[in-house]
């Protein structure tokens, strides 16, 4: 599809004003109107002139940033494309998505990283921020060309889906990465302890006869990488933490002043291991859904600031893949369009804190804080979300913009819904409807 760039320039050059909303950013909450023109915020104040867009009773915040989206392109376009994933992101209030590197081919070369970024530009719905692989082919054997990738704009490196098992290789990656001023994001899983695992190792897996994924397999690697960060000085980000002890380890590391950050997913904050009693593969995810005790610890970790970011681990899979047996079905669930509603539904969180974990902190971790997660003031790029924090709603799978349907949140009451998403001064979502 060919886009008319002149038309686009024309649209975002036109001044409009968000009226009736409450701004929430790092400076807290305040009622004000926001005028946008030419892709940037031009004025914040009262009784501003320009075409009025209704934000009555809603929150105006910097657009959400997802540190963890599987957009599946290149390689698995049957599940999602960069365009459909971007649209799902826009509907969820996102203006930037960090694209995970487990594509085919993987994002371990400048060519693939450039392709992903360019496909994101073509779709034009969010900023697609490619991550790079830590190791070639995510095989955990040799470093990917991290300096080349960093020169091509990659700020965050991960072998997501595979934790880097080899301690020496991970140490080298941290040392090398520190010299490039990039962040290393780890999927924490000691693979020998999780071979064949389908669900949390717990009372439930004992009775269901499903192979268990013990919490210690995550915690060992969290501990290891905290200690490697201590001796290398590297910035380390922990992906999708799922256990109570992992939160404790990160809390202690932060107390020591180490440059550690961590994320948690909406599903690990809301769904527990007993979901697997239905044997529905939609609940198979890696790391697995954990115990109510872990859920409570993760929520506490978010509220006390130990956990920096809410990240979706949006993992689309086509129906036929999820219709395999539990041991063969791929792990993962959708997240982009439901993250806000789940977060507000399960967390007793104030709005400035919500905006920190969904926008400000992830923008900083992804290295895109110049364009996203910024305070709403004149000169800031107009990457914004307008959402109603108190509207409750239920997920209708057929209304999802994602190409896949593997959402575990069907039937759950979510709280908080996106009204408008503005990317580069353009409405990607207006009144809850995707504009392109």
């Amino acid at each position, binding site marked *: 599809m060919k886009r008319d760039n002149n038309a686009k320039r024309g649209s975002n050059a036109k001044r409009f004003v968000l009226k009736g909303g409450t701004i929430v950013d790092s400076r807290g909450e305040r009622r004000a109107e926001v005028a946008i023109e030419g892709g940037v915020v031009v004025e914040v104040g009262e009784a501003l002139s320009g075409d009025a867009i209704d934000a009555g009773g809603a929150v105006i915040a910097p657009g959400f940033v997802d540190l963890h989206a599987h957009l599946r392109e290149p390689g698995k376009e049957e599940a999602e494309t960069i365009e459909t994933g971007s649209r799902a992101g826009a509907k969820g209030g996102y203006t930037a998505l960090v694209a995970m590197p487990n594509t085919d081919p993987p994002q371990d070369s400048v060519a693939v990283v450039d392709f992903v970024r360019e496909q994101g530009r073509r779709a034009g719905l969010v900023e697609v921020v490619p991550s790079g692989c830590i190791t070639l082919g995510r095989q955990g054997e040799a470093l990917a060309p991290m300096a080349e990738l960093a020169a091509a704009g990659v700020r965050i490196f991960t072998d997501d889906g595979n934790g880097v098992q080899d301690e020496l290789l991970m140490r080298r990656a941290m040392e090398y990465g520190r010299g490039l001023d990039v962040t290393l994001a780890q999927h924490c899983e000691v693979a020998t302890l999780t071979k064949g695992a389908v669900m949390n190792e*717990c*009372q439930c897996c*004992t009775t269901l006869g499903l*192979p268990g994924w013990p919490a210690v397999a995550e915690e060992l690697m969290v501990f290891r990488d905290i200690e490697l960060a201590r001796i290398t000085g590297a910035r380390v980000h922990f992906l999708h933490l799922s256990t109570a002890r992992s939160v404790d380890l990160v809390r202690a590391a932060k107390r020591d002043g180490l440059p550690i950050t961590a994320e948690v997913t909406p599903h690990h904050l809301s769904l527990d291991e007993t979901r697997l009693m239905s*044997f529905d593969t939609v609940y198979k995810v890696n790391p697995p859904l954990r115990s109510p005790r872990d859920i409570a610890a993760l929520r506490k970790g978010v509220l006390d600031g130990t956990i920096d970011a809410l990240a979706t681990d949006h993992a689309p899979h086509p129906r*036929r893949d999820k*219709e395999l*047996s539990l*041991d*063969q079905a791929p792990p993962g669930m959708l997240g982009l369009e439901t993250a806000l509603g789940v977060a507000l539904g399960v967390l007793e969180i104030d709005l400035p804190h919500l905006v920190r974990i969904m926008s400000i902190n992830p923008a900083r971790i992804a290295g895109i804080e110049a364009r996203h997660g910024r305070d709403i003031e004149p000169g800031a790029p107009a990457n914004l979300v307008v959402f109603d924090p108190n509207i409750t709603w239920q997920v209708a799978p057929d209304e999802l913009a994602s190409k896949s349907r593997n959402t575990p949140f069907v039937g759950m009451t979510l709280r908080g819904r996106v009204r408008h998403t503005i990317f580069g001064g353009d409405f990607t979502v207006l009144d809850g409807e995707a504009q392109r």
Partner: protein
Amino acid sequence: MKHLRSIPELGADGLTRLLELTNHMVEVNRRPVPKVPALRGRTVVSLFFEDSTRTRLSFETAAKRLSADTMTFSVSTSSVNKGESLRDTVETITDMGVDAFVVRHKSAGIPWQISDWTTAAVVNAGDGWHQHPTQALVDCFTVREARGCERFDGLTLTIVGDIKHSRVARSNIAAFSMLGAQIVLVAPPTLLPPDVAHWPVTVSHSLDDVVGRTDILYMLRLQSERMSQGHVPNLREYSERFGLDARRLAMLPSDAVVMHPGPMNRGVEMLIDPSALPNSLIHRQVANGVSVRMAVLFDLLAGESSAGNLREVAP
């Protein structure tokens, strides 16, 4: 009952009902022509993703004695590995007009997935490490027959071996405890599931400690792959600690019985010739297998006319 997928789902009432119904089927099997027209016109499909000749033959014999038509759909696990949709397979066979699937698969939960995709009844013939409900029915029926009692209050069932990977153990723990038995599990900790504290069982790591206080000694098969996975160092060590040998046989109370779900590993968990066991129920387990599976298929498929059909099978 719409499906038979697990013992907990069947419940105590269902368990008792099927055991009673099995009595009728035993009588049918004693007749000179052990065949009744109860399920004439019904079709039962065996959908086996994992080889099991004895269970499959037991179900097919049961179906045939009730005059049902049978089909076998053997699926190699490799074709599923290639991404073949299980749902397509099930929907295609359902379209042929079948009444029941008898399913065996190496993954837990498959019978629940399949029952979402078909209108036919689903019988679990073993799903991974999870459940094997007809084996538990067979074992309960066999103990009832041997002891001449309906409930097992005061009896101790001792299950020995690879509990962790055993659907037979999980099914029998549920079924025997519903009937009042005390249950003791005997295994090295590596062959126990991670959290058995919430099960209605006690645990021992020494067969010698408990063998003298058991009424039903239930030996499980130890698969040789457990060695390569490091669950036990070697077979000799396992046999010495958890095998049934002449010394332990002598320690068993005189009225205790010995059971095994088969196939047996001679020289591993069974160190004496099973035909030399004085109180072995192993042959009765196999023989009762057909009657139990007749009861299950009858209960699921006879439907509206079940009362009339029951007269056909009644003496």
